[in-house]
């Protein structure tokens, strides 16, 4: 079908999940210093989940490695960003 939910979209993408997270979010900074929570909106994989206490729950496993969260985050040091190990992470087949 043409119209799809975000979950349906993500199911079409292949990920080879590495053992160590390539992106780490310091939820302390999110909770104490950030009012924008930009990452929650911009991440095309919808990986940033806002918590009731103002913090962020993040899981690196279905990440496109696009870098948008790193660019959009307005709090220095909240996101430690790098690429996954060689051969791991997202593997596009059609794009």
């Amino acid at each position, binding site marked *: *079908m*043409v*119209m*799809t939910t*975000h979950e*349906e*979209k*993500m199911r*079409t*993408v292949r990920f*080879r999940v590495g053992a160590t997270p390539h992106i780490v979010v310091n939820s302390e900074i999110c909770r104490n210093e950030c009012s*924008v929570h*930009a990452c929650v*909106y*911009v991440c*095309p*994989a*919808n990986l940033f989940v806002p918590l009731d206490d103002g913090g962020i729950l993040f899981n690196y496993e279905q990440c*496109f*490695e*696009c*870098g*948008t969260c790193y*660019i*959009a985050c307005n709090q220095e040091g909240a996101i430690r960003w*790098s*690429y*996954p*190990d*060689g*051969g791991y*992470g*997202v*593997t*596009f*087949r*059609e*794009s």
Partner: protein
Amino acid sequence: MTTHPANQQFDVIVVGAGPAGSAAALLVARAGLKVLLLERGEYPGAKNVSGAVFYGSAILNELIPNWWEQAPVERPVCRRDIAFMSPTTAVALDFRCAGAGFATAPYNGFTVLRPKFDRWLAAQAEAAGAFVLTSAVVDDVLRENGRIVGVRVRREQGEIYGKVVIACDGVNSFLAKKAGLQREFHPHELSLGVKEVLGLDPAIIQDRFHLTDNDGIAYEYLGAITEDVHGGAFLYTNRDSLSLGVIGQVSSLVERRKRPYELLERFKAHPAVAPLVRGGKLREYSAHLIPESGWAMKPKLYTDGMLVAGDAAGFCLAAGLYLEGMNYAMQSGLAAAETAILACQKGNFSARTLSVYQKNLKQRHVSTDFRAYRHAPSFVNGPRLQNLYPEMVAQGMEQIFRVDGAPKRKILPLAYRMVRQSSIKPGQLLRDVYQVARAYLW
């Protein structure tokens, strides 16, 4: 330079097997030099996303004559549409060309799927003699006496030495930053593209888009299509699928609190788009950043022992009518390769020798094009030109065509009333007209 084990020592190391890196490695290998092409993906193209229309056919034809006969291309683009959208209407400019190099060799542009195309291009570099190493992430540059002498790959004994390093590692280029050539970016300088590939029967594609045989079409959409987010959308035909996506400036996505994949759904539901995508079956969803500010985000292009090319150097023309990055990536990759070859011949890898890169970029029309269009990005990617004016065109047409018994208005009073009703001031409008002219006309 200190000597290192032969298997760790190359003339040229190219980082990133996108169009910039593979073209560079191909040319260096053909010059008989020892070149290593490093790619972090499982295969070249595994991490890469474009629309994608590849407009570099003529360039590639110089390297590999009749390349399209052996490459995984989808369709030659013989129709181009630019559509101005309001939430419910659309006005389109339709360009068709069946001959003159559009539907005939050497072709103007082909739709491609990057995981297939990039893999093929890297294989051409390999066939020419380049060493291609995939699943290899480069984490840093190596320095000796202040100059760059190689790269560090993330694994045991990952130090690899090269006389020249060419960074073709794309928009997030860690290498250009590690080498001190690039600064951090602002959210207004980058756009996020989200994309879908929808499977569709070739016979339906042919009928629905009025295409002869395997000819293809490229649609670009401006106006209310991204709501109040600065951006646009595209839809391209492949052999048995459609590639479509929405592009939004990162800062504006943040300000408007818009989720990119929701904009994508709304795009597909627009009354002018829905009939085009009907019956399509989702094959893959993807996302990638685009460097949108061209000239303004150009890094220092070279230093002792290193050159930067492609998206890593900001050589992506993303300005309204144009979304061209693969061709410029290839052109700048070739210019970097020519520079590296010359340096190897001279046996000198200083910044001074490598400064020939600037001349080579000019000769290949890269820096000249980006200079010429330097005014376009900041303005075109702004709210009025990308969203407001196109939407007004679409709404204006609706009023011109609507027959509802009310008195017919002539176009000028109609336009006058629309400008009055909008937030635009007449002086602003005049300035914008001048800016468009300066960006595109002269």
